[in-house]
C-alpha cells in the first residue's frame, strides 16, 4: 500500500479524538542538537480544518486494526472500514517532513489494539523513542496510553512524551460497560492514578533539583543530575458526548472528579458524530455541537471561575445545560438575587460570576479600582460584551435599575436567532 493511502486511512481513523493541544510543556529548542524542534510554552495551531478544529499535531493511528469492539468507534473490530498499518519509520519520517514544512508542532500517536495491549504500547513508544533518540527531535509528542499496558511501558512513554492521555471514553462506568465491553473503567482510573504519581514525582524532583544549591568540589565540574522527566505537559482525557443518555450534570460531575483526583490538564468533550459504517445501536444524528460547546464553557467555569460542578447545571433544566445561553449567563439569570454586583467593591470571586467578564478582565478591573472608581467607559475599553454585562453590574456612573426583574431578560440577552447558511452547519 502506498504511503499516501495509508496516511488517508489512518488520519480518517484518528479524527474522532478531539485533543490537539501542544501547550503546557517545558521550554526546549534545537540549539546545540542534531535535529529540529522546539516548544515554547504556549502551543501553536498551524492550521484549521472546516470542522473548526485546530491542526497542531500530526494526529494519526499507528494502525486501525483493533481487537476491541467499542460500539462508538470507527475502528472497532466489527466495522468494515479499510485497514492499514504504518511502520515505525513511516510515522517518524512523516512527522519530520511535516515539521520541516512548519505544518505541525509534533506528533499525536494513538493505535488500535493489535496482538496485545503491551505489544501495541511497545510499538507506540518505539516511535517516540526513535524520534527523540535517533533524530533528536525536540518538538511536541503526545502519546495515547493503553490502560492495560504494563507499568514499565507507561513509564517509558512518559520519558519521551510531553503529554500522555487515556480516554475515559464515556462519562459513566455503566456507559463504558455497555458500549465498550472490553474496556475496564477501573483499569483506566488506576492507570490515570499511576500517571499522576509519576508526573507529581518528576515535578517534585525537578523543583528540588532547581532549589538545591549546587555543591562543587575543587576541580570537579559543578553539575547537578538532571531531574528525570515524565510527561511535563501532564495528562488529559476525552469523553464522548451524545453516544449514551448521560446528562450534562453527570458529565460535569465526572470531569470534576477527574480534575480533582488525577490533576488532568484537560478533559476533552467530543460530540458523537456519524461515522462511516456505524453500528446500528447508536444514534446517527448530527453531532450535538452546541452541547459540546456549552460543556467546554462549563468546564472553564469549573477550572478557572470557582464554580462547583453541582451549581453549574440548574436543577430546573433536567440535568442539561441551556443551549441558547452560555452557562455563566444561565447561572446569573437563575440567581438574580446575587446581582447587581458592584464592580468597585465586590470581591474577585463575585466578579468572576458576572456574565461576560473573563479572568483577565477581572484582573484589570481589580488593578484599576485600586487607584480610581470604575466607570462604564472602562468596560468599553476592555471590549467586554456590554449588552450582556451591564444588567448585572453597578459602576460609578451606571445602575441597572429594574432590568434584573424583567421577565424577558433572558430573551433580551440571548443572541438573536440567525439564518444559517448552507456553510455554517
Amino acid at each position, binding site marked *: 500500500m502506498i504511503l*499516501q493511502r495509508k*496516511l488517508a486511512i489512518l*488520519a480518517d481513523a*484518528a*479524527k474522532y479524538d478531539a485533543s490537539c493541544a501542544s501547550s503546557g510543556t517545558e521550554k526546549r*529548542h*534545537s*540549539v*546545540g542538537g*542534531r535535529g*529540529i*524542534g*522546539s516548544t515554547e510554552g504556549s502551543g*501553536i*495551531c*498551524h*492550521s*484549521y*480544518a*472546516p*470542522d*473548526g478544529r485546530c*491542526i497542531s499535531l500530526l494526529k494519526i493511528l499507528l494502525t486501525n486494526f483493533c*481487537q*476491541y469492539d467499542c460500539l462508538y468507534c470507527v475502528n472497532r*473490530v*466489527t466495522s*468494515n472500514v479499510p485497514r492499514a498499518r504504518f511502520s515505525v519509520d513511516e510515522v517518524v519520517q*512523516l512527522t519530520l*517532513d*511535516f515539521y*520541516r*514544512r*512548519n*505544518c505541525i508542532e509534533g506528533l499525536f500517536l494513538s493505535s488500535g489494539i493489535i496482538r496485545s495491549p503491551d505489544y501495541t504500547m511497545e510499538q507506540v513508544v518505539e516511535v517516540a523513542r526513535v524520534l527523540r533518540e535517533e533524530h533528536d527531535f525536540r518538538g511536541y509528542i503526545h502519546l495515547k496510553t493503553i490502560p492495560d499496558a504494563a507499568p514499565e511501558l507507561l513509564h517509558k512513554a512518559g520519558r519521551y512524551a510531553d503529554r500522555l492521555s487515556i480516554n475515559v471514553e464515556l462519562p459513566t462506568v455503566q456507559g463504558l460497560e455497555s458500549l465498550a465491553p472490553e474496556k475496564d473503567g*477501573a483499569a483506566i*482510573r488506576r492507570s490515570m*492514578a499511576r500517571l499522576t*504519581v509519576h508526573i507529581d514525582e518528576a515535578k517534585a524532583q525537578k523543583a528540588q533539583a532547581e532549589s538545591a544549591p549546587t555543591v562543587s568540589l575543587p576541580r570537579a565540574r559543578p553539575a547537578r543530575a538532571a531531574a528525570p522527566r515524565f510527561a511535563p505537559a501532564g495528562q488529559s482525557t476525552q469523553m464522548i458526548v451524545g453516544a449514551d443518555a448521560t446528562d450534562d450534570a453527570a458529565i460535569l460531575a465526572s470531569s*470534576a*472528579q477527574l*480534575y*480533582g*483526583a488525577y490533576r488532568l490538564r484537560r478533559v476533552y468533550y467530543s460530540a458523537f*458524530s456519524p*461515522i*462511516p*459504517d456505524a453500528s*446500528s445501536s447508536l444514534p446517527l444524528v448530527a453531532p450535538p*455541537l452546541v452541547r459540546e460547546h456549552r460543556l467546554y464553557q462549563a468546564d472553564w467555569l469549573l477550572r478557572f471561575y470557582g464554580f462547583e460542578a453541582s451549581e453549574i447545571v440548574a436543577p430546573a433544566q433536567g440535568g442539561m445545560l441551556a443551549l441558547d445561553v452560555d452557562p455563566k449567563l444561565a447561572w446569573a439569570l437563575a440567581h438574580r438575587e446575587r446581582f447587581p454586583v458592584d464592580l468597585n467593591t465586590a470581591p474577585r470571586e463575585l466578579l468572576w460570576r458576572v456574565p461576560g467578564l473573563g479572568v483577565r478582565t477581572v484582573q*484589570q*478591573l481589580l*488593578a*484599576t479600582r485600586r*487607584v480610581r472608581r*470604575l466607570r462604564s467607559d472602562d468596560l468599553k*475599553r*476592555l471590549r467586554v460584551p456590554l449588552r450582556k454585562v451591564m444588567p448585572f453590574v453597578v459602576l460609578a456612573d451606571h445602575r441597572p435599575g429594574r432590568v434584573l426583574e424583567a421577565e424577558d431578560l433572558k430573551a433580551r440577552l440571548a443572541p438573536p436567532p440567525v439564518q444559517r447558511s448552507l456553510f*455554517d*452547519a
Partner: protein
Amino acid sequence: MRHTVTLSSETDWPGFRSEARRLLAHLVPPEDVAWHTPAGAAEDLFVPIADSEQKRPAAPVPPAQGAMNFVVPPAFLTLCEKVVLHQDPARFALLYRLLWRLVHERALRHDPLDADRTRARHMMQAVRRDLHKMKAFVRFRPLEREGEPPLHVAWFEPDHHIVEAVAPFFVRRFTAMHWAILTPECSVQWTPAQADPTAAPQKASDASLPPGELRFGPGASRADAPPADAGEALWLTYYAHIFNPARLKTDMMRKEMPVKYWHNLPEAALIAPLTAQATERSGRMVEAAPTSPARRIVQPVQQARALDPHPGAALPDDPKAALAALKRATERCRECPIGAHATQSVMGEGPIHAALMVVGEQPGEQEDLVGRPFVGPAGQLFNRAVAELGWSREHFFVTNAVKHFKFELRGKRRIHKTPGQREAAACLHWLESEIAQVRPRAFIALGATAARALVGRPVAVTAERGQWLEGPQGRRVLITLHPSALLRGDPAERDEAWRAWLEDLAQASDIASLEAAR
C-alpha cells in the same frame, strides 16, 4: 518649538529610545514632536544585524536638568518593544506621549484602563497575534541545491514589521536546517554553521543565537518562492482526511485562520471543496444501512472481570490467593457509596499469619492513587515511629478499617473525609475476611474508626488510649491515636504528643518483634 525625529528604520527601537530620552530630558512635550520613519529603510542587501543593537540593556537614564525620575516600569519597555513593530505610523507618537505621561502623571502607572495605555495594549496584542500567526502559518517548501543541503523557503505576508522579531524563533526551532523566509518588506535567511568543532563560535557575544548566520535582506515577491513539491501532497492528504465532514464549523475556522492568510496556505485550496461535499458525505453516513462485519479478526480479549469473585463467593484455600481474591472483590464493592468515586480499593500488606495487625482508618489521597496502604503523610509518620521503636515492617500486617478513600471534592482538591459509621459498618466484613486469612494474635487500632471496628463498640480513644481492650472472640486490641491526629495537633505540643504516642505503641513491642508464624 516643533521637533522632527526621523528614525533609521520602521523598527528602530534603539533610535526611538535614545531620541525619546533626549526629548524628555529637554522637557519637550509630546504635542511638539513629529516622528517619522524613512519609507523603505532596509535598502542594503543582506546586512547582518548587529547584535549590540538588538537588545540594549534597560539602564536607567541619568536625570538631566530638573532632576526627574526617568525610571519606567519594566512592563512599559516590553510594551514598547512590541508596539514599535506595529504598522500604525502613529505608534511612536503614542509611545512618546505615554512615556511623557508616565513621568509626569504618577497615577498613570496604576491605571491599566487609561485610554492611551489601552490603545497601546491593543496594538501590542495585534503585534503578538501577528507574530503568533506567522509562527503558525509560514509554510516551507524544500529547494534542492547542488552540493548543498536543501534550502527551505517560505513566502509570507505579515501585517506588521515583525520579521526581525520572529526570526530567532525559527532559528531556535530549525537550528540545523537551511531556511529562508521571504516577505514583501524584508527577507531573512538562516545558514547553520558547519559542524566543525574547531571553529570559533561566530557570535560569542550573543548567547541567544547558536553559531550560524542570520541575514536580513530586501523584500521579495511571491514568484521568488518555490512552487509546490511532491511531498506537499502528503500534507494535503492529511488535511483532507483529518477533517470530519459530520461537523462543519467554518465560522470557528475563519475566526482562528482568517481568510487573509489562505492564499499562502497550500491546504486552504481544499477548504471550498471539502466544505461543499461535507453535508452530502455526512448524509450518506447517516443513511447507510449498518453492514455486517466482513470478518472477525480474533476473539476479543478475555473478560477477566467475569472471573472476579462476587461478594459472598467462596475464597480460595491458599491465604495469599484468598487475599488477592478479596482485593479484586473489594474493587467492585458498592455496598456503600464511596467505592464508586475512589480510584481503587486499598487492601492490607504484610506477611500472612503475622502476630500483629495494625489497623488504620481508611486510605488517603496518596494510598488511593498508589493502591497501597500507609504510603501517605500519616503512613510515613507511622513508619518513623516503627523505626524509632526498632520494629520491622516485614514482621507485621498493616491495613485499614475502610477499604476505599472517602473524600469531598472542594474545587480541584479531594479533601479527606472521616468515614461515617454506615461506611465503616458496610466495610467491616472485608476487614473480618482479611483478619480470618492473616489470623494475628493481637491488634493495634489507630484511631476511633479502627477501634470501633475491632472492639465492636464505640471507643473513646483519648480516654482509653494505651490500653489493651478485649474485642469479640477474645481479640486483644491496643488502642491509640491515628497518626493524622499528630499531624493535625498543636505544633507547640508536638514533641510531647509524639512521645506519648510512642509510649502507647511500645506496649506492643513484644508482639511486633515476633516473626510471622510458618
